């Protein structure tokens, strides 16, 4: 008999994705590809004004159209749905799925149409006539805080949704007791203080697949099946059941292929509740697919935090204290996690530095704009931007190298776990190693030389560097209203193949591959013998979902635990068959054998079969090979890194161009470096996109001026140079894999690094800070001496 080939270990190697064959051949099933007999199409009539009272709604023309099944106004929907719940413990105004008498942002749903096809549904929605009493639109957060020019929600005077809430040194966790003495002392002892107003502007997430829902209520079964382009089908299931008065056993939620999420598909949206309620009411399946122009206003936005920052330092560059006053423009309503996102900006104000005193205060403000919620990075890129830009300003003020000022202030690698001023406990880190890795990769000294040579040629060239640390692997149950664990199940089938499921619901992260790699190694079987199920609550019994860079750090850990349970039991069955102690059993290359006695072996399939036909059943054992596990992390993980860019700005046109982007990232142990690289690339593109070209712009009357791809600059391939990728590896002690999470990391360092480079490039004009994004016109004005910068 030929000996079986030895299987390579897969964890840690660049395994090609198992998801790809279907996706590169057009065989993926996204929500809009779901078809059910009798399916009707649902469309929304949306407010075209930002703020106003609904005087009348005339649906008669729509109702008369051929093919129209039903029309619902907000009042009629309110008979089916109570106001939508949120996921944070903060006060919130009533938010109806469809507006009843007031509209508070352009794009808010005001009526619903159900029709035979999507064209008719759209026509009918357009035929609904609404008469509004317009009110002044609130678009400026600082004006809004004075109640100007209007108050949006009666019960929230001066449009203040939350705060000001203090956090940091001398603040009790509940914010009720405040001792400012340490912070005041830091500023008294300072040789130099840097103060700057910085704006981390509003972005539109723009996953390439807009949202979409299919809801199918079967009256005979009292059972609702929902397909939705969501990051967390289990949360969707619970929320829908709660709102519709169904048991969680009566709802099945399916996230099929999901075409990107970036945080904007965490929220449980009005459209999901409405589709479910309408399907139940009419007893027919309905489908709603978001148009892109609809997505621009109806899907949550990201960022939009204003910061007044002060940094106190000694002349040698040692930072003594930081003050950050944050004002978050959250738009018109609280969504699922809206209120929590800016609190993450406070949490990460310590950045990678050992800072003795920090005071942050946060105020969240309602405006007549699309609500904000998570967007890739979600609160952490904002913190990173503010602190890193301020450090850069300090370095410039003190004429220090931007790398050296960071080195001077780092949390030393022997200080971990490190308790920050902000209440976080950083799990592990080696920031100096990351900085050195990036400096070496960028060839820092020569990079500065290259910049200076470009300048000697008369060009505007600049170098930017930024460190980051991120809170990921979210998160212990105390930090999430849904619970912060993840669930997995592993079953060895009777034929020795493996079925596994995970509550981490991917939308591009490649969990079928990475989780397959892990199980292949754990059981010594080919990855082709493993199927990873996800995204369907009927198959995956419990779960939380994918956000906060948690798939691997929490979901992967749960899978590892479930796998370990099954492996232990399988070793017991094998031990019984091979007459050996279970602890002497090894799994290798499709065989299960006795350690040191390779002749004593059974095939993996033989042991699997024995577990299901256990004759005789070993004493004290149950048949079967299946286990599930819940992993509850004891802490978050804190990945970190350093990003460096070289930028050139055209002196004639103000157009900035990136010549180099160098990234050194540390996500702990990596399961699949190829996938990790892809995740960081994507993050870099979004981080650089924010700095350079992306911006949600509102007019004074509350219209989103950048409401389509004609006006909102989504980055194209030509916007980037080749990213230069490097890694350090500092495992986390928080989970058994040592993996920290990497989905959002790229968005953190890149944004401030780009702006630092622009400021450096324009330093000959005395520029100290530039607000994003780096529109050529803005840079041109600076070059022309027309202002526009600090």
């Amino acid at each position, binding site marked *: 008999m030929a000996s079986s080939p030895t299987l390579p270990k897969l964890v840690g190697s660049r395994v090609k994705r198992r998801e790809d064959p279907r996706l590169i051949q057009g065989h993926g099933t996204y929500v809009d590809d779901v078809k059910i007999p009798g399916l009707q199409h649902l469309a929304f009539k949306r407010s075209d004004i930002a703020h106003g009272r609904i005087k009348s709604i005339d649906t008669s023309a729509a109702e008369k159209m051929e093919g129209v099944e039903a029309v619902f106004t907000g009042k009629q929907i309110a008979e089916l749905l109570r106001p939508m719940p949120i996921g944070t413990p903060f006060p919130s105004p009533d938010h109806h799925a469809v507006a009843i008498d007031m509209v508070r942002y352009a794009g808010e749903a005001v009526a619903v149409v159900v029709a035979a096809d999507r064209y008719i549904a759209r026509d009918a929605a357009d035929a609904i006539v609404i008469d509004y009493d317009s009110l002044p639109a609130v678009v400026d957060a600082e004006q809004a805080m004075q109640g100007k020019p209007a108050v949006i929600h009666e019960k929230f005077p001066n449009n203040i949704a939350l705060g000001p809430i203090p956090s940091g040194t001398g603040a009790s966790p509940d914010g009720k007791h405040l001792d400012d003495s340490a912070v005041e002392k830091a500023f008294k002892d300072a040789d130099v203080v840097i103060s700057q107003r910085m704006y981390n502007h509003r972005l539109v997430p723009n996953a390439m697949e807009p949202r979409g829902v299919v809801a199918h209520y079967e009256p005979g079964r009292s059972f609702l099946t929902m397909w939705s382009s969501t990051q967390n089908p289990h949360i969707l299931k619970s929320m829908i059941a709660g709102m519709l008065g169904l048991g969680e056993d009566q709802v099945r939620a399916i996230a099929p292929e999901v075409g990107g999420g970036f945080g904007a598909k965490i929220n449980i949206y009005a459209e999901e509740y409405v589709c479910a309620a309408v399907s139940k009411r009419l007893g027919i399946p309905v489908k709603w697919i978001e148009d*892109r122009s609809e997505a621009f206003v109806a899907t949550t936005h990201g960022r939009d935090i204003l910061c007044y920052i002060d940094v106190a330092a000694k002349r040698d560059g040692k930072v003594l204290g930081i003050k950050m006053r944050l004002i978050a423009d959250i738009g018109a309503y609280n969504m699922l996690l809206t209120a929590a996102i800016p609190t993450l900006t406070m949490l990460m104000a310590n950045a990678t530095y050992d800072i003795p005193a920090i005071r942050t205060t946060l105020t969240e403000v309602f405006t007549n704009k699309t609500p904000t919620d998570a967007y890739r990075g979600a609160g952490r890129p904002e913190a990173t931007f503010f602190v890193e830009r301020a450090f850069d300003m300090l370095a410039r003020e003190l004429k220090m190298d931007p790398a050296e000022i960071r080195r001077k202030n780092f949390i030393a690698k022997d200080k971990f776990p490190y308790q920050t001023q902000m209440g976080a406990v950083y799990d592990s880190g080696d920031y100096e190693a990351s900085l050195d890795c990036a400096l070496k990769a960028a060839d820092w000294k020569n990079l500065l030389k290259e910049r200076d040579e470009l300048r000697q040629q008369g060009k505007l060239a600049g170098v930017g560097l930024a460190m980051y640390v991120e809170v990921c692997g979210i998160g212990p149950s105390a930090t999430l209203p849904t619970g912060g664990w993840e669930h997995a199940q592993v079953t060895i089938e009777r034929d020795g193949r493996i079925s596994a499921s995970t509550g981490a619901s991917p939308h591009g992260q490649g969990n079928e591959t990475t989780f397959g790699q892990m199980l292949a190694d754990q059981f010594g079987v080919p990855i082709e013998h493993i199927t990873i199920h996800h995204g369907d609550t009927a198959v995956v019994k419990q779960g939380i979902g994918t956000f906060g860079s948690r798939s691997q750090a929490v979901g992967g850990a749960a899978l590892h635990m479930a796998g370990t349970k099954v492996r232990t039991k399988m070793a017991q069955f094998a031990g019984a068959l091979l007459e050996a102690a279970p602890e002497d059993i090894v799994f290798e290359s499709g065989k299960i054998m006795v350690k040191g006695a390779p002749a004593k072996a059974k095939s993996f399939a033989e042991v699997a079969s024995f577990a299901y036909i256990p004759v005789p059943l070993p004493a004290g054992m149950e048949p079967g090979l299946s286990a599930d596990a819940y992993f509850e992390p004891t802490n978050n993980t804190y990945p970190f890194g350093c990003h460096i860019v070289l930028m050139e700005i055209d002196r004639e046109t103000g157009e900035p161009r990136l010549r180099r982007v160098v990234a050194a990232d540390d996500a702990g142990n990596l399961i699949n470096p190829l996938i990790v690289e892809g995740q960081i690339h994507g993050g870099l593109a979004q981080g650089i996109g924010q700095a350079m070209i992306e911006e949600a712009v509102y007019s004074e009357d509350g219209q989103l001026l950048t409401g389509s791809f004609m006006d909102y600059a989504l980055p194209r391939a030509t916007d980037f140079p080749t990213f230069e990728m490097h890694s350090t590896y500092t495992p986390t002690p928080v989970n058994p894999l040592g993996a920290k999470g990497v989905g959002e990391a790229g968005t953190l360092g890149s944004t401030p690094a780009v702006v630092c480079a622009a400021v450096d490039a324009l330093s000959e004009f005395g520029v100290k800070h530039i607000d994003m994004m780096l529109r050529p016109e803005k840079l041109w004005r600076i070059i022309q001496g027309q202002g526009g910068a600090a």
Partner: protein
Amino acid sequence: MVPISIIVNGKPRKAHVEPRTLLVHFLREQLNLTGAHVGCDTSQCGACTVLIDGRSAKSCTVFAVQADGSEVVTIEGLAKGDQLHPLQEGFWEEHGLQCGYCTPGMIMSAVNLLNDNPKPSEAQIREGLSGNFCRCTGYQHIVNAIQYAAAKGGR
């Protein structure tokens, strides 16, 4: 309703459509070819890209009646049986996709790109993709994927 006759992925198809039916909706809803995706409503994103008479076209910007009498190739028609097209192979080998939503359009655009220029430089590839958005990859692995296919002489 207007009668149309289109060869789709090598197979002649006859149908009656409303004049306003977009080609992408005809392909997706009537022929069940759901590989071409709709990612925008302003012809920017390119997720719906197919080949019409050998040239890439955004099928959300073409009425089905305009394609009458022409030959259309969609992502589903690109592989020869089990044999992936070199670009499909390249996207797989080089991790040129994450969520996969832009991928069919991206690949069909790349087919056109390599038809026009079998040995493109990196800059030419990036320029050639300017009609296709990807929000996941930052484009770098897509560039690698196209270089992979070009090196294999793949069109």
